[in-house]
């Protein structure tokens, strides 16, 4: 189309050019005719030649001549290469032969025809033609070149775009994996300390039971040591709950987070991360200040900061976690408004200015090779930015470093449902009912059985799903308590098979799995899930509730 347009343009231009050439030749002939009339009338050949010579200076004129009234040639001048003008000229119209114009105009003075002026233009040379159209040809060529370039660029762009979206997808997946690995890394760092803590807890429980065994005949002592053991077990349970919550693999989900509550939930884990030499001080707001974030990410950020602080205080110190509401105005980065300030300050050695400058850079670390990835503070920064805020490092007025997260305040979520704690008092004597207990762990099965029997239930226990099914061929229990994770037939399958036989059987699944929602989904909502570790009161409450509902 472009070529067609340029050709038509060229043709138009050519037509205009030839029209112009014609008009020009006619005008020049008219000038000659007008000026030569007297010379013609008085047959003044020198004068005629003067007029012709003047005209011939125009390079466009190849030949010119003056003819008498009878068409007789009087004076003629030609350039080399011109067609010789005719000897006798019959005055006629303008002629146009291949590339050249021949014009014959009558010389008339006051109505008297005196003769004829003749003019022949130089033929239009190829060079002239080319010169006229070079610009157009070049422009057309350029346009075509540009067009092909643009087309190629566009397709390249499309390809690049496709590649980019592929890369973005891959990157999103990688980021997801990376976040998970960050958590695992933090856990890895904790493992040593946590194992030590667990050993301590187990030591307490172990010791308590030894003492109970040793003083079995003294109920007062037994009760005291049993309580001690129970407390230690509860601490352990709380710790594993936090670890599980922390390591839970789930999608990054931004929602209103009451930061102080999230921090309080991880109190134990934090304290254990810091170790006995570092005192943890919470200075949290009581206004349920809320930020738009992912709770796990907030926890991970504080955990990262705590680990850094711990490493900065090898000789011990104090870690203060503070939340409060601040008003930001005229900040270079943040728009003015109310923000939630989450500050983690230590009393360690502080941070050198050059370290402070780069602290948030990914992979920047001051730790020894293999000790840190340099991603901790980068994660902290990421959380802050994601919550519409910023992260800043400064000095703790009490010595040491302070990292401050400024999170844009969000409207508080609806009041969370009250978390049910362990029942305050043991429930006494429920209606006598038969409970089918399935658990592959003999110890757990024994303890739970004891607990249930203490509450007045008759207990049938089985160490596997298969055994439970065999058992129920003869006896029909009123309720079943089944462990979820078992070798062979798992809890979900056992529950399903039992249901086939006893469709209205209430079932409680006990699971140590972090994601109870996943377990519930696997069961299609037909069973109650009890999170392990549970205390006997919680279990017997659940059993009593389900029996009442049945």
């Amino acid at each position, binding site marked *: 189309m472009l070529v067609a347009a340029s050709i038509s343009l060229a043709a138009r231009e050519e037509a205009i050019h030839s029209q112009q050439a014609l008009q020009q030749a006619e005008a020049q002939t008219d000038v000659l005719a007008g*000026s030569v*009339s*007297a*010379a013609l*009338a008085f*047959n003044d050949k020198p004068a005629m030649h003067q007029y012709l010579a003047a005209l011939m200076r125009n390079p466009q004129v190849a030949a010119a001549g003056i003819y008498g009234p009878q068409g007789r040639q009087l004076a003629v001048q030609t350039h080399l290469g011109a067609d010789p003008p005719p000897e006798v000229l019959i005055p006629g119209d303008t002629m146009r032969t291949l590339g050249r114009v021949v014009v014959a105009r009558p010389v008339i003075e*006051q*109505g*008297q025809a005196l003769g004829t002026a003749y003019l022949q233009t130089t033929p239009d040379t190829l060079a002239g033609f080319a010169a006229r159209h070079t610009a157009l040809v070049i422009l057309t060529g350029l346009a075509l070149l540009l067009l092909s370039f643009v087309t190629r660029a566009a397709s390249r762009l499309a390809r690049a775009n496709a590649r980019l979206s592929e890369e973005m997808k891959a990157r999103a997946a990688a980021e997801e994996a990376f976040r998970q690995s960050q958590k695992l890394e933090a856990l890895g760092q904790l493992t040593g300390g946590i194992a030590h803590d667990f050993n301590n807890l187990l030591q307490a429980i172990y010791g308590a039971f030894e003492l109970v065994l040793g003083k079995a005949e003294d109920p007062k002592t037994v009760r005291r040591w049993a309580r001690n053991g129970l407390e230690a077990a509860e601490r352990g349970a709380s710790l594993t709950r936090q670890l599980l919550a922390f390591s839970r693999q789930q999608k990054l989900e931004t929602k209103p987070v009451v930061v102080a509550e999230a921090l309080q939930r991880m109190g134990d884990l934090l304290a254990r991360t810091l170790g006995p030499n570092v005192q943890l001080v919470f200075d949290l707001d009581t206004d349920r200040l809320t930020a738009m974030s992912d709770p796990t990410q907030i926890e991970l950020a504080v955990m990262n900061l705590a680990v850094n602080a711990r490493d900065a205080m090898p000789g011990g110190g104090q870690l203060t976690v503070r939340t409060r509401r601040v008003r930001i105005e005229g900040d270079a980065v943040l728009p003015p408004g109310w923000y939630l300030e989450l500050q983690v300050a230590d009393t360690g050695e502080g941070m050198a200015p050059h370290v402070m400058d780069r602290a948030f850079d990914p992979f920047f670390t001051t730790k020894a090779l293999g000790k840190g990835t340099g991603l901790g503070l980068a994660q902290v920064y990421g959380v802050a930015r994601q919550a519409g805020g910023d992260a800043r490092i400064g000095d703790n007025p009490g010595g040491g470093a302070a990292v401050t997260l400024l999170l844009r305040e969000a409207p508080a979520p609806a009041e969370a449902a009250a978390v049910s704690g362990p029942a305050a008092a043991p429930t006494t004597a429920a209606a006598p009912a038969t409970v089918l207990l399935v658990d592959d762990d003999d110890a757990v099965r024994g303890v739970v059985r004891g607990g249930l029997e203490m509450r007045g239930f008759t207990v049938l226990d089985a160490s596997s799903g298969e055994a439970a099914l065999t058992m129920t061929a003869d006896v029909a229990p009123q309720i079943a308590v089944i462990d979820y994770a078992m070798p062979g037939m798992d809890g979900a399958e056992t529950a399903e098979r039992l249901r086939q036989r006893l469709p209205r059987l209430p079932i409680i699944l006990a699971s140590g799995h972090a994601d109870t929602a996943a377990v519930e989904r696997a069961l299609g909502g037909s069973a109650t899930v009890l999170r392990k570790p549970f205390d006997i009161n919680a279990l017997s409450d659940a059993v009593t509730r389900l029996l009442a509902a049945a």
Partner: protein
Amino acid sequence: MGTDSRLRGWAAAFALAFVALPAQAADAPTPVEVKADYVAKLAPFVVWPAAVFAAPAAPLVLCVQADDAFAALLDKLTTGQSVGAHPVVVRKTPRLGADSGCQIAYVAGSPAQTPAAALKAVDGQPVLTVTDTDSDTGAKGIVNLVAVDGRVRFVIDAARATQSGLTISSKLLALAADVKR
């Protein structure tokens, strides 16, 4: 178009030139014929005051004070000619006067009037007087035909033309052998 065709063109031109020369020589006009022709052709290059012509198509009168042969020659040359809307009329005028009604007067003298007297008779009138005298002392018209290098040329007295109310075309002035201003 090949070279041979161009050569042929040149050859034809040469042949024509040789053939044409004797022919032209035979046809060459005599000096008298040339002069008559000149007189006949002056009119288109002169503008008279509008009042000179009684009507838009009134004739342009060319008065001749010369021998009959010259008058006849002029008559023949101007037959069917007109200048603008004015047909050219040749009138023999042995005695020229202010009331002769001439626009052009060829003054060569007659038994009735010397050239000087004739010129004097129309002096200051819008009449283009034409004389043919080579002598320095002779009476000369506004246009005086002279021979220069064997060719008939003319001298124009532009000052007198202006006095007479005539406008002479610059084209004619350009051809003049001399112009008196």
